[in-house]
């Protein structure tokens, strides 16, 4: 079974790493990069917390759609997190390959 990575904050930061996006564009981009669909309540809950922590910032609204962009603090935070995940994943996969499975 494939584990789903469902940490909305990380998905939002990873998506915003390619440029500012409003809510709908974020949901569609996250669907593409992670294969998971965030609901609007989940997306805005995470986005509000990220904004409060200074990891994303709002840009001027276009009509009623407000784009957000990642801040330098947000980029640094998500980079550190993803590098750790990458190390853990690489080590875990290597160990799984070397594991002496019975039979």
């Amino acid at each position, binding site marked *: 079974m494939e584990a789903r990575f469902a940490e909305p904050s990380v998905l939002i930061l990873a998506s915003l790493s390619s440029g500012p996006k409003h809510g709908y564009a974020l949901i569609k981009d996250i669907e593409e990069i992670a294969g998971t669909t965030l*609901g609007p309540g*989940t997306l*805005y809950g995470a986005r509000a917390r990220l904004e409060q922590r200074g990891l994303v910032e709002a840009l001027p609204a276009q009509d009623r759609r407000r784009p957000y962009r990642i801040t330098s603090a947000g980029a640094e935070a998500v980079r550190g997190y993803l590098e750790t995940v990458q190390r853990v994943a690489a080590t875990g996969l290597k160990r799984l390959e070397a594991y002496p499975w019975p039979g």
Partner: protein
Amino acid sequence: MAWLIRFYPRRWRARYGAELEQLVHDLRPTASGVGLAADLVKGALVAHVQQRCDVQASDRKAIKRGALIAGILGLGLAAEILLTNVVFPSKTDDDGILVVISYLCIFAVLFLSGMLAARDGAGRTGQVLAGVTAGVTMGALIIATFAVVDNFWLDVVSQQQTKLDGFAHSGAASMRDYINHSLIGPAVFFTVGLGTFGAVLGGLGGLAGRPAPTEMEPRRRP
């Protein structure tokens, strides 16, 4: 569907409501209605819990800052008490204007504590507690200053006419006993009294410092 956004906290809606409503409108043609509704309800619950946690953190911050501001003013008042009673002592009670200015500063700080608390998102409890903390802190510093000044510089303070008159009618065994006994009433007034004033003025300052909504509330659908 967007009517579910009304379940979000008011402050949250003021900031994100219009955007979220637009997003729901954009998603509606392709997304499952039940899924959207469930996610909005879950998001509203999380937002309420989060706001409660944020308010508690803001309350604690407001209380600490109330104590800090009051501490700074309290030190200023302590210096003023030392100057007028020891460095430039007067045998007559002629520091009325300084006393009035001091009280005005105290009340301004109590009001400011509540106002800044509100600006930082503290709830009503945090605003009032910030004022109470500021009042009690200043009261404690003032009475502690008087206790130190009256005991360490008793020879200077005891020359004040009000002290001489009070001692003469008190029946106390010594001037020190009289002065220390006469500090008990002011100790209650300065701590309990200023704490009470702090609650009232902190609350009023909180009303004055409420942040105005920055965004329109989400449109109501007919």
